[in-house]
């Protein structure tokens, strides 16, 4: 998710460093995207941004550094992503805070604003989603609100890009003024206690950068940092009893035993007051909002889950059906391209490297771009409409039975796209055990890179009418296996209490065409870029390993045999035999032969074994390796040299089933393994994962192979 790497800005006088803070799903990342030319990932659910991201841009004479922080409902370290935000705010050096709020739900958003006011930094409030508020007949008086709370408030809309310039001007103005005290007024009872502490600090002329009022509020709220700081001061001995007494008064006033709860009630009362003053709603909220009407159907207790399954099934049908249309053209293009390029190269070895190695390998991967695009569109829609949270709601009960958290659904679904962001997004889970458990089973959700392998094998063994269904079954059974694995892990390695499930359900939003197009384009370009770089490199390596060492004796022996042969068919058969034997004697052949006994019980020949091992680097490499191996070897006959037909001719059905099972379960790829290790917090977890997935993959593939043999 960290596409924009943090760069350091040259430190000059006009450098403004901004912390972008707000509740989840209020459009922080989108706002940055519309201010600068950044392309941060945006979606419609809480927890899209899980790590801080820096974006730089220039405006007028200023350099800006904006730090996009994960959304948080309050500053209380509930989950890892929320901790990132509250730690950044209290420990780092920055000039001011932009607090992004959702204009359509000001009261709830101000709860965080009120907490931010006591951080003691300059602040600008961006009243985002102004366009949506207008549509709903909600009008916020920004000028009045600025006066009322002593913070400049600017109406903006990240979607329509309005008010952006005004916001930046407000930031510059705020940056250049000397600090102004925010006007957050508490109830009389609390104000009295604040006054007591302030006058005590005044009496002792306590030296601090922050105002006495700010210190007093933080002390009363039980802010650990301020406590620790004052604890070492001489005045603490006298201050402590005053504080205890004050806290007791406040708790008594609010009739509760938790001062934090009391402050929440204070903030809430203040916010209601502000909202009553500055917000005017033209049309009273209808009895049922559009979101609630849609929810009546989509999260219906009986219909909800069937609808979800139907949508998923539809997605895989489309992936196969529509994805198959341009495939023939792409295949034909690479065939033609290989022939054309090959014709210009005189040297046999170089021609083979370019045509069979690079073009064959990369072409095999590029072939599946249409399928990938459709899958990405599906996931982008799921992310941006707000449906994702509904599915988490529907499935929480079911997931819970397997020891998983409903919110695990979000990383798991992300895992259908790519495991890497999925591992990152597991940070929305509060509890480390839940998070580790989720991390371990994300790999069971087949990522986009495995899709080419499935499409290849399904296309080779099933009729086009069945293919979409088979694809759906592969994905669903992968997910089911993941759940069972979760249950096993929960009962053994990750025993423990269940964590609470409290989650916001965002409003449904019609995703903008631009947004979906952009997300899909970025991901597709990444796929193609990988094909052009990593996969091309891997293909060259595989080509080299499968062509060397040359066995000149054998080549000459066959050359004379071929010359002596009488019929054309015999010549071709001999040439085939030669190619096969050469391949078997190559480095790759030796590796394959060496590991063949391990994979023999699963019915794999050495080519499949090699493809699987190469697939540890990335799943696309499985396809490109098969592409290289089968374009070198056995398919010089019949004239039809597409990889799909080569597979259906050379691989028996039971072996193919076992192969798919292994692909479904074993490690996603090298890059994902690195991210997994980082997120799980130690290399030992990687070895656990490697062992865990390899054993399951092997055992299940063995069972599947023998079942398939028995049935066919």
């Amino acid at each position: 998710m960290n596409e924009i790497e943090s760069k350091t800005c040259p430190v000059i006088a006009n450098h403004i460093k901004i912390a972008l803070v707000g509740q989840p799903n209020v459009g922080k990342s989108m706002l940055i995207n519309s201010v600068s030319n950044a392309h941060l990932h945006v979606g419609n659910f809480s927890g899209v941004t899980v790590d801080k991201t820096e974006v730089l841009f220039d405006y007028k004479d200023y350099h800006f550094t904006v730090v996009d922080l994960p959304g948080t409902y309050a500053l209380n370290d509930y989950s890892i992503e929320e901790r990132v935000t509250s730690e950044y705010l209290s420990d780092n050096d920055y000039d001011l805070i932009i607090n992004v709020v959702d204009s359509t739900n000001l009261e709830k958003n101000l709860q965080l604003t009120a907490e931010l006011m006591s951080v003691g930094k300059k602040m600008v409030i961006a009243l985002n989603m102004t366009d949506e508020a207008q549509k709903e007949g909600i009008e916020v008086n920004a000028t009045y609100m600025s006066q009322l709370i002593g913070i400049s408030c600017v109406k903006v809309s990240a979607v329509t890009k309005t008010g952006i310039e005004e916001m930046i001007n407000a930031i510059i103005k705020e940056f250049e003024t000397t600090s102004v005290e925010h006007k957050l007024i508490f109830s009389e009872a609390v104000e009295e206690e604040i006054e007591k502490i302030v006058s005590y600090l005044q009496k002792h002329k306590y030296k601090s950068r922050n105002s006495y009022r700010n210190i007093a509020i933080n002390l009363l709220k039980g802010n650990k940092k301020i406590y620790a700081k004052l604890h070492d001061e001489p005045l603490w001995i006298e201050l402590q009893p005053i504080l205890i007494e004050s806290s007791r008064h406040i708790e008594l006033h609010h009739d509760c035993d938790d001062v934090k709860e009391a402050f929440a009630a204070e903030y809430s009362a203040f916010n209601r007051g502000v909202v009553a003053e500055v917000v005017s709603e033209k049309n009273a909220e209808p009895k049922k909002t559009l979101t609630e009407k849609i929810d009546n159907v989509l999260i219906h207790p009986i219909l909800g889950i069937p609808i979800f399954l139907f949508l998923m099934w539809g997605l895989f049908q489309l992936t196969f059906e529509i994805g198959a249309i341009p495939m023939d053209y792409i295949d034909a293009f690479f065939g033609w391209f290989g022939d054309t390029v090959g014709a210009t190269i005189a040297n046999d070895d170089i021609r083979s490297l370019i045509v069979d190695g690079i073009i064959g390998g990369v072409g095999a991967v590029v072939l599946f771009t249409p399928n990938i695009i459709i899958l990405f569109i599906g996931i982008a829609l799921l992310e941006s409409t707000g449906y994702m949270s509904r599915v988490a709601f529907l499935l929480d009960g079911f997931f819970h039975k397997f020891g998983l958290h409903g919110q695990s659904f979000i990383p798991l679904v992300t895992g259908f796209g790519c495991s890497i962001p999925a591992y990152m997004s597991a940070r929305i889970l509060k509890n480390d055990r839940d998070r580790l458990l989720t991390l371990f089973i994300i790999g069971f959700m087949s990522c986009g890179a495995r899709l080419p392998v499935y499409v290849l094998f399904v296309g080779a063994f099933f009729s086009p009418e069945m293919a979409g269904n088979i694809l759906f079954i592969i994905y669903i059974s992968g997910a089911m296996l993941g759940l069972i694995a979760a249950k096993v892990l929960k009962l053994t390695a990750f025993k423990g209490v269940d964590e609470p499930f409290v989650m916001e359900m965002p409003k449904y939003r019609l995703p903008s065409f631009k947004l979906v197009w952009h997300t899909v384009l970025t991901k597709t370009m990444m796929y193609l870029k990988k094909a052009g770089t990593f996969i091309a490199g891997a293909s060259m390596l595989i080509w080299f390993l499968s062509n060397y060492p040359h066995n000149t004796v054998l080549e000459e022996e066959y050359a004379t045999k071929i010359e002596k042969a009488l019929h054309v068919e015999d010549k071709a058969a001999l040439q085939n035999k030669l190619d096969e034997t050469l391949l078997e004697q190559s480095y790759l052949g030796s590796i394959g032969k060496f590991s063949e006994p391990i994979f023999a019980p699963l019915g794999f020949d050495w080519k499949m074994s090699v493809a699987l091992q190469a697939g540890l680097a990335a799943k696309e490499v499985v396809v490109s390796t098969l592409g290289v191996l089968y374009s070198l070897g056995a398919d010089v006959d019949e004239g039809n040299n597409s990889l799909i037909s080569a597979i259906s001719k050379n691989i028996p059905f039971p072996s193919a089933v076992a192969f798919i099972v292994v692909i479904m379960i074993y490690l996603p790829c090298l890059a994902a393994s690195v991210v997994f290790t980082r997120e799980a917090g130690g290399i030992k977890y990687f070895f656990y994962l490697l062992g865990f997935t390899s054993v399951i993959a092997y055992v299940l593939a063995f069972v599947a192979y023998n079942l398939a043999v028995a049935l066919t």
Partner: protein
Amino acid sequence: MKKLSDCQKACKVKVVKLSGDSELRQRFISFGIMKEATLEILEHAPGKSTIEVKVGKMRIALRAKEAELIEVEKI
């Protein structure tokens, strides 16, 4: 006392008391589920394992087990 988990669909209630550990209570509060807040039960997930409530303009999903910790009264 009535618990939120016992409430039927479309029922409107007022929060009387929050129980549970401090962390969870903070979580409730940060979602606006605090004393005196009005909640409306919108939907139950299959098997009543999870419920959706409306707090102000926000919709929150929570498990029945968590809803048991919220004492409410009918309004």
